[in-house]
């Protein structure tokens, strides 16, 4: 009975928290932060409007189109296009519309410049795939309507700028015609389309811009062929390279006549340089070619006479031309010199005279300048001033003006590859603390204000004061470890090869480091970062060491290129060391062992299936040898539909005599029939997950034992036909099979088929359950299923006496080679939204109930109690089950708006959700990343182990004072009464 009342008590509490995560509007920003990014800028167009705020419109490699404030770099508006809808070109039309061409030139959209509202959208089709060009002529009018000229998919379109209607179109159907340039000579109604045909034919079409009529078609043949791009040096001259890359062809087509001149590069530059490529630029009269080491700027004089103007071995970046007056064009050049960059602005026809020459100090961690965009303004003394927008190697965006960095944006954070966390230093006497606690009076005053707030007595000014006081709380952004474990460093690796450390308190960048090992070098052509691992987490033996992380990267996109390891100190952000490996890195297995200096052991599997142990120390080796026979791993071969289990065999044999290298053997393999099944998702449990108890007490005083194994793998396969998009397959031809596989023995513990379902599958594995999300074609809705797996071999350990007398098998060793007796329970529910990511909360001891974090298609993160995905839910739960907290079964999972973790924000382009336990058991830290970053603290069962932030100490004090006063009053009263009694 006592137990039952206890359950009732629990129920009373749990029922009161039905929307578990809920937030008042004024609590936004207390526990969470949100940062908006755009990604590496591809193209930038300055809005030249005189009135209104200065803006720059950019398109990025993250497929974002955004309008930025030119004064501060803030985002006015931003849109993230679909993954297949890659932006090809942007421009501004009529000064008020942003025009974007995307999807390989087949979608043209116009956006309102001030607010980012889409104005119109046109779909452009064409006969064949080709390069696409978007041109916005300023002077081409058609019935008072400005024209846009778009060349895409082998077709030239003229489109109205106001409503997106196609006015005329012209096909270029010649089989081999490859368009290279579309030219609009200013002040005429002609369009020139130039390109190559059949490798050696130069073609020029002249078209009437009014109606699309073909006026002239000329072609000339060049026996040496062409290579690479062409550069436009005037409206009637292009420069190309021949197929060997050693002869420059200057082709002019004045008045429709093609004439050409060939100049070998060796005539211009004495020393031979090897094959060159043309760097496309739009500066008239000048073009650049680049060989391995040298960049050469060449001027075109008259009709095809070439002259070298500059030769440089520095890294150099050139902007496009900017017309500053009728006949003058300016462009910007940026050169690197150790810790500075030199910016020069030159006029196109006057190489030697500089309009502007500035040097700007540049942080080395930003790397090289990748792109330059130039804009001018008129100074108060009516002379021209220039500002340049530069894109750096680490994807950051900076605005330079008058020799200074006006603003910078860390847009590398828009493309995070991997995330890990690190503890902050322990607070010691020597360690400086951000701010000293303010005095008692201020503390009390703050709490009085808060009390006023809770009693709804505060004036708007008071409210503002309260809000700013809460947001600025110095407590959360200190650089030391806190008691609750809320303050940590988030170490993120971005696609640019840069590591950032973000403080969880306010999201600021503590340090950043551009990995030197990820720089391009002779040995490593196109290095890419892969993963981050915690390398050294000192807590017992090596307290004085700083923690460090391991960055695994490799030298090329394919998995058999050699790997690179870097070790970075997480307190200082300095690279401790880096290792260029002589083997590839296919798989990294962090082992649950540490050596004497708390370095974690990692096993790297290479392309030849050798295992390499890191760190390469003898201590690590001896630990490893002890656990030699207990190390198992698996690999998934997606193309063949094979999952294999591996174990270690012996020391490497053969030429590499290295005692840290081991041969491996295959233990088992699961082969899925390729004609009926295709693997689309594999998920395992998180390595560092903590499970509090194996036993689960169910309503009728019964105990069930969770089957908890780190070696469980969830695999989802679909019918090969159904692996495409939704709507491409009928329910009859599509199915989805879910497996639970033991990765040590290869035994399939559970298999379930969902007929009429298809992917994409998003799954998460935790404790003894897996939850997965897929599409049900029959109902045409998304579904989520849960599978829970229980250990039957321990099911008879229920008798208390058995446990007391030790006649149970709980301490008997578990071997995965003995056949496990397991039972599974599963259930399915409908879910409204598509998902992008799924995660589960994790806490320090695993006692707190779990919540699923669902990244929805709308880029929000929804927290859903695991209780809603409990296979024991029934339509009419009994009284006992209700007391246990089982929710009556419904066909679909509820979406409670208050349980959106991201509340009214969007994590644009959401890719991943990471949960990290805090030291406080009730709380978990959640980091969601995509183009935006979002961080918050979650308490899945509310903060039962600490007072909440809005706990009113003042109210407590007042209550105590009131109680003491009441005691004294009643004492007086009782004394008086006693006296009266005595007098009577």
């Amino acid at each position, binding site marked *: 009975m006592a137990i039952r009342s206890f359950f009732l008590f629990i129920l009373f509490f749990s029922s009161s928290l039905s929307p578990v995560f809920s937030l008042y509007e004024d609590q936004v920003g207390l526990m969470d932060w949100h940062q908006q990014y755009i990604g590496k800028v591809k193209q930038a167009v300055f809005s030249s409007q005189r009135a209104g705020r200065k803006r720059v419109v950019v398109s990025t490699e993250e497929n974002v189109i955004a309008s930025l404030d030119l004064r501060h770099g803030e985002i006015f508006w931003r849109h993230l296009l679909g993954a297949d809808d890659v932006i090809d070109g942007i421009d501004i039309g009529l000064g008020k519309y942003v025009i974007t061409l995307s999807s390989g030139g087949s979608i043209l959209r116009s956006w309102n410049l001030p607010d980012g*509202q889409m104005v119109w959208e046109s779909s452009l089709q064409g006969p064949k795939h080709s390069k696409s060009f978007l041109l916005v002529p300023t002077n081409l009018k058609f019935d008072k309507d400005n024209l846009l000229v778009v060349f895409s998919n082998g077709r030239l379109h003229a489109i109205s700028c106001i409503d997106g209607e196609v006015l005329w179109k012209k096909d270029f159907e010649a089989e081999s015609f490859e368009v290279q340039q579309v030219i609009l000579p200013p002040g005429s109604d002609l369009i020139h389309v130039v390109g190559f045909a059949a490798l050696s034919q130069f073609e020029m079409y002249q078209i009437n811009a009014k109606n699309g009529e073909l006026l002239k078609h000329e072609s000339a043949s060049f026996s040496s062929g062409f290579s690479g791009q062409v550069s436009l040096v005037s409206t009637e001259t292009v420069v190309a390279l021949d197929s060997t890359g050693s002869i420059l062809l200057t082709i002019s087509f004045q008045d429709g006549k093609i004439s050409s001149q060939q100049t070998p590069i060796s005539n211009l530059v004495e020393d031979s340089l090897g094959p060159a490529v043309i760097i496309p630029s739009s500066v008239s009269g000048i073009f650049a070619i680049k060989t391995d080491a040298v960049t050469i700027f060449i001027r075109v004089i008259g009709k095809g006479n070439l002259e070298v103007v500059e030769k440089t071995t520095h890294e150099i970046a050139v902007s496009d031309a900017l017309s500053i007056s009728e006949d003058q064009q300016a462009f910007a050049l940026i050169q690197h010199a150790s810790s500075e960059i030199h910016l020069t602005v030159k006029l196109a026809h006057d190489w030697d005279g500089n309009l502007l020459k500035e040097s700007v100090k540049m942080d080395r961690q930003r790397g090289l300048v990748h792109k330059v965009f130039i804009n001018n303004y008129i100074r108060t003394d009516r002379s021209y001033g220039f500002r340049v927008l530069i894109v750096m190697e680490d994807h950051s965006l900076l605005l330079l003006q008058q020799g200074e960095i006006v603003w910078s944006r860390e847009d590398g954070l828009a493309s995070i590859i991997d995330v890990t966390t690190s503890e902050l230093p322990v607070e010691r006497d020597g360690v400086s603390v951000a701010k000293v606690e303010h005095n008692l009076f201020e503390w009390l005053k703050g709490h009085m204000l808060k009390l006023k707030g809770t009693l709804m007595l505060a004036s708007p000014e008071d409210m503002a004061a309260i809000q700013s006081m809460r947001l600025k709380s110095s407590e959360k952004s200190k650089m030391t470890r806190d008691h609750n474990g809320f303050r940590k460093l988030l170490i993120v690796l971005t696609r640019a090869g840069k590591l950032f450390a973000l403080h969880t308190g306010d999201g600021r960048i503590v340090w950043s480091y551009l990995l030197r090992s990820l720089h391009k070098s002779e040995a490593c052509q196109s290095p890419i970062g892969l993963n981050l691992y915690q390398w050294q987490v000192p807590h017992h033996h090596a307290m004085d060491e700083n923690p460090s992380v391991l960055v695994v990267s490799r030298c090329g996109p394919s998995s058999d290129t050699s790997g690179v390891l870097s070790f970075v100190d997480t307190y200082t952000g300095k690279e401790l060391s880096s290792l260029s490996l002589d083997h590839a890195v296919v798989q990294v297995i962090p082992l649950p062992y540490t050596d004497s200096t708390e370095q974690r052991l990692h096993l790297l599997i290479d392309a030849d299936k050798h295992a390499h142990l890191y760190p390469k120390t003898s201590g690590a080796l001896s630990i490893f040898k002890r656990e030699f026979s207990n190390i198992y791993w698996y690999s998934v071969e997606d193309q063949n539909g094979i999952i294999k289990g591996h174990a270690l065999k012996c020391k490497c044999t053969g030429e590499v005599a290295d005692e840290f290298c081991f041969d491996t053997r295959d233990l088992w393999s699961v082969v899925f029939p390729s004609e009926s099944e295709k693997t689309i998702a594999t998920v395992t449990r998180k390595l560092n997950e903590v499970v509090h108890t194996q036993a689960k007490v169910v309503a009728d005083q019964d105990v069930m034992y969770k089957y908890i194994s780190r070696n469980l793998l969830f695999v989802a396969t679909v019918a090969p036909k159904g692996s495409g998009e939704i*709507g491409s397959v009928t329910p009859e031809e599509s199915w989805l099979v879910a497996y639970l596989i033991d990765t040590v023995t290869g035994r399939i513990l559970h298999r379930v088929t969902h007929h009429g379902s298809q992917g994409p599958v998003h799954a998460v594995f935790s404790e003894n359950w897996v939850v997965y999300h897929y599409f049900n074609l029959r109902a045409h809705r998304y579904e989520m299923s849960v599978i829970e797996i229980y250990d039957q071999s321990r099911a008879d350990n229920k008798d208390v006496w058995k446990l007391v007398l030790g006649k149970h098998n709980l301490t008997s060793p578990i071997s995965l080679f003995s056949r496990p007796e397991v039972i599974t329970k599963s259930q399915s529910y409908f879910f409204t939204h598509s998902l992008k990511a799924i995660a589960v909360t994790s806490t320090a001891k695993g006692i707190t109930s779990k919540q699923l974090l669902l990244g929805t298609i709308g880029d929000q993160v929804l927290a859903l109690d695991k209780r809603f995905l409990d296979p024991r839910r029934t*339509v009419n739960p009994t009284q006992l089950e209700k007391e246990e907290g089982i929710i009556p079964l419904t066909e679909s999972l509820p979406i409670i708006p208050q349980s959106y973790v991201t509340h009214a924000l969007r994590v644009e382009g959401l890719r991943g959700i990471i949960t990290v336990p805090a030291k406080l058991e009730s709380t978990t830290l959640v980091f969601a990343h995509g183009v935006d970053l979002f961080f918050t603290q979650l308490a899945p069962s509310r903060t039962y182990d600490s007072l909440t932030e809005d706990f009113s100490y003042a109210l407590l004090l007042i209550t105590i004072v009131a109680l003491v006063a009441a005691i004294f009053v009643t004492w007086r009263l009782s004394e008086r009464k006693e006296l009266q009694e005595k007098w009577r």
Partner: protein
Amino acid sequence: MAFSCKNSSKFNGFSSCIKMVMVGTSTIMMQQRTLAMEASLCVKKSKKKGADSVTRPNSQISAAMAAVTPLLLLLLLSSAPSFSSGSRNAYNINGRVKIPQGLGTKGYALPGRMSNVKVLLNGGQNITFLRPDGYFSFHNIPAGTHLIEVSAIGYFFSPVRVDVSARNPGKVQAALTENRKGLSELVLEPLREEQYYEIREPFSIMSLLKSPMGLMVGFMLAVAFLMPKLVENMDPEEMRRAQEEMRSQGVPSLSSLLPGGARN
């Protein structure tokens, strides 16, 4: 607005004419079939699922009801000809997102300002945005059954199942997947507003009393004022006896506990 919806106005005219034709001919037959299909689908599902079957009767009931009343049926389901055929077996889906003026007063997405609304096809395969008048279109979509979702902060939209027929362009259905309601036109409206924040209750005496501290104070007051009343009602004889007993046991009274009590 006048210039931006040229295409859409064209499609509007198209839609109304098709609808008339449809109503004139064999609409009812066809719709009954589709309804029957939906209903049977539910049954199948419930058979398979067992436990779930009991929880999904409302759709069957609504389907049955609709079949009984053809008038309602006409309103509920009629083919949405919002699809114009393109080239090469590819179609365009045109539709409209409408956020009623009454909603949205709380203001995440201001009424009329819809620049942050996205329309997604098949879980993000295609993404498009709204024109100022709420119209959207997907281009070059193959025939088949598709899913359209609307993402708008502050509103809950049901995903929409859209069938694009290859054999008979124009004969297409759209239905909300949340409540299996058919759409006569591809006009998507939010099912409800989403309130992401808890609303702070205004200060009231009741809430203070209901709080744990309030209850504590209330209980103490009750003890302090009601207990003496109870004591008063007792028989004086008994009372004296009880007091004697208490004195003999030496239970300290409140007044004796306090420093002032020592004086007596």
